[in-house]
């Protein structure tokens, strides 16, 4: 199926465990992004990538690691999960061009850290 898919949709993990959230897009968009959504804070950028092997920090990168070995995949890893990382995580992609249709978001992963 064309589009952007995130997995898993829901995840419960324990404090201190490593967890990886997956994001896959089929458009060959150059740009990919990870946001977290929390009540009162809206959408905050964690990391983004302009192309394969190029990543950069966003507003709230601490405690997260990303990689982008292939254009279509952009996994987000919480190295040692903390309760403050309980959130809904959204992946997005964009071709970034002047005539771009902007971001397309995935359906999100709801992560609970207990």
């Amino acid at each position, binding site marked *: 199926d064309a589009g952007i898919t995130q997995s898993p949709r829901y995840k419960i993990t324990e404090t201190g465990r490593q967890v990886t959230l997956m994001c896959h897009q089929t458009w060959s968009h150059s*740009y990919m*992004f990870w*946001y977290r959504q929390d009540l*009162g*804070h*809206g*959408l*905050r*950028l964690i990391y*983004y990538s*302009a192309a394969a092997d190029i990543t950069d920090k*966003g507003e709230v990168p601490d405690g997260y690691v990303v990689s982008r070995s292939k254009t279509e995949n952009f996994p987000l890893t919480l190295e040692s999960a903390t309760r403050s990382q309980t959130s809904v995580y*959204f992946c*997005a992609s*964009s071709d*970034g*061009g*002047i005539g*771009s*249709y*902007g*971001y*397309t*978001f*995935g*359906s*999100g992963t709801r992560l609970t850290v207990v």
Partner: protein
Amino acid sequence: QQQVKQSPQSLIVQKGGISIINCAYENTAFDYFPWYQQFPGKGPALLIAIRPDVSEKKEGRFTISFNKSAKQFSLHIMDSQPGDSATYFCAASIRTYKYIFGTGTRLKVLA
């Protein structure tokens, strides 16, 4: 300077009324201002967007008004419907990537 301030946090409107959501920004380098609509359990979806060379853009019942000198822009939903009940996010960016989002407005349209 990178913030986008959005208000109100929540809004209740009667069916058929006008919903107005406001956003303000500081960085004059921003050149793309989209609005996203999000339904519960879904990711945000692009609703309408404007560039600073125009003062207004209309798509159906949705209109963006843009005031470059005041560094403000707003979303107007005319003839609001219960199906418009959702969370709305404004955003700003330089070119069309790396958006800075507002904190969101939860809109409820009463039948």
